């Protein structure tokens, strides 16, 4: 993996104005994304996990330039996307593509498969008829769609096949970054693994860079190199997949880890950390550490002071006053070389 940073996100925020009433006396906001900092290296897969409403899709939409951030920078190949002019941005869009969650609503029901896959090519590349057709056929082969189905409409396909069309659209332009916004959560479990395998295969073959958003760890674990855990609009922990599964620093991550179902009953000996309570409203986030309302280890400092998101040990970033698994921290400090 090259160490070149493809994307750097600095202090990214999105606050939705939800002020009610006509006279707008009291402004109120939903702090959907409240200060994200991370980077994505070329050729890697960064997984983002978190429960519903934690702002992971909002973050994806902002990077995909579908939502305008309230604050922050999105630096793509050294260029702040938010400072680009409209026409420059339109050209840049060819480099950042998205795969959407719901394959039933992300394809226009009135367009044929050929038109759907050709749309990005028509928008950004000047191809003649034959080149266009060849490219579309190539894409269909690549994602495992039968070429013969070129003239079909989306409603004639199953969910998995539709998602393949979505993937073909996303990779048609050879983008540098693909944002996968829960690409498998709307699919049948039996199909999920097929689509995940396809994504892994394409990522390796085409040397793609992914931001892979999901609400549970299993899918992310399978595909990601590094994983960011989000809670209430913030990243609470960010580290490589191996290190994360070795042991979490943040109690929330610990909770997520122990929520992963274990298929073998014999192995279900490990004590489980079940996170209790509900996620607080992002309209009125708690003071101090966002997680203190549900954290079993919360102290006074957690209620008053927001923990810094910092590198606790080599390659392990977390935002917590009292990180767990401290033995891992020491162990890692000695193994500096990785």
């Amino acid at each position: 993996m090259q160490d070149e940073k493809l994307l750097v996100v600095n202090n990214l925020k999105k606050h939705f104005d939800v002020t009610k009433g006509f006279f707008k006396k009291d402004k109120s906001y939903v702090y959907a994304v409240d200060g994200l900092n991370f980077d994505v290296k070329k050729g890697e897969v960064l997984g983002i996990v978190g429960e519903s409403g934690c702002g992971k899709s909002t973050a994806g939409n902002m990077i995909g330039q579908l939502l305008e951030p309230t604050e922050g920078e999105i630096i793509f190949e050294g260029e702040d996307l938010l400072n680009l002019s409209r026409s420059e941005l339109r050209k840049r869009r060819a480099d950042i593509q998205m795969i959407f969650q719901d394959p039933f609503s992300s394809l226009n029901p009135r367009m044929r498969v050929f038109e759907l896959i050709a749309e990005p090519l028509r928008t950004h590349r000047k191809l003649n008829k034959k080149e266009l057709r060849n490219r579309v056929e190539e894409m269909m082969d690549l994602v495992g769609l039968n070429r013969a189905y070129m003239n079909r409409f989306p409603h004639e396909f199953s969910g998995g096949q539709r998602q393949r069309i979505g993937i073909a659209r996303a990779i048609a332009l050879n983008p540098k970054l693909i944002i996968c916004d829960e690409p498998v959560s709307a699919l049948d479990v039996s199909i999920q693994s097929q689509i995940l395998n396809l994504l892994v295969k394409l990522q390796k073959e085409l040397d793609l860079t992914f931001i892979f958003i999901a609400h549970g760890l299993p899918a992310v674990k399978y595909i990601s190199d590094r994983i960011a855990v989000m809670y209430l609009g913030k990243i609470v922990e960010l580290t490589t997949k191996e290190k994360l599964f070795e042991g979490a620093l943040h109690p929330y991550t610990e909770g997520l880890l122990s929520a992963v179902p274990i298929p073998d009953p014999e192995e279900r000996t490990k004590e489980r950390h079940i996170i209790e309570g509900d996620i607080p409203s992002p309209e009125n986030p708690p003071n101090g550490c966002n997680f203190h309302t549900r954290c079993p280890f919360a102290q006074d400092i957690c209620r008053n002071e927001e923990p810094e998101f910092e590198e606790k040990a080599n390659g392990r970033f977390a935002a917590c006053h009292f990180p767990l698994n401290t033995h891992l921290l020491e162990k890692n400090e000695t193994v500096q070389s990785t």
Partner: protein
Amino acid sequence: MSHESQAVVNDISKDELVENRPSSLKRWMRLLWRSKTGTVGLIIVVIALLVAIFAPLIAPYQPQEINPVNMLKPPFWMENGSMENILGTDNLGRDIFSRILYGSQISILVGVMSVVVAGFIGVTVGLVSGYFGGIIDNILMRLVDSFLAIPTILFALVILAIFDSGVFTLIIVLGVTNWVNYARLVRGEVLTLKERDYVKAAHSIGVSNFKIIVRHLLPNVISSFIVISTLSVATTIILEASLSFLGLGVQPPTVSWGSILSDGRDYLSTSWWLATFPGIAITITVLGIIFLGDWLRDVLDPRTQK
């Protein structure tokens, strides 16, 4: 694993040609045949159009030909009726049948063309307003509101009083007074459509606003537009009748169904046939257009294809 089996499937199909889908025309004909109302609608509309075009050849009399001897003759099956005037004559002895044939020209032309004009303005405003939102939406929708506040007939009266009343003015006036309905309908549809993922997807690909509107939104609002517009062909024919009745529609000696209808109104209690037959003509034509519109909506939706 699973994608390996997919790869095998692909190898087999590599040389296979793209499967043949039925051509659009064939599909249309088949859908038409399957839908009884669609067939009936098409037949009615075709007949109405043929009648309008060939009226001078079919009509036994000139529409304005006065025959004082034959005033208020009933249709042929009634006492005193004769085959010379199969649908009877009016108070000036003019042949009702011939007048209906000639009247169809103006009525169909005005009915259809003003809906086209109204639809064009309304759909454009609705698409722009719904898609861009914000200030543009506010301005356009307030404009729509102000148009809604003006009584249609009154507005038409003013315009027709200022300009020469003729068929062309009539079409424009009816078009301009009716576009608001389409604008509101289309805007509403667009508001939901633009939140769909495929519009977002097109955005993220970098498709221009114009192309998103034309390729993604327009085809998806067309079906509801067709339903509403076929219904309003009917109201427009009636509206033209009211304007003609007020003397601001087409001027005599030009005839339209509306003008025949209003001429016959005074004789409704004694000679019912004066107003009834043009009324029936309007009803049948409108029904035909509605049937055809329903079928068209089905045809335009690829999901109904089997």
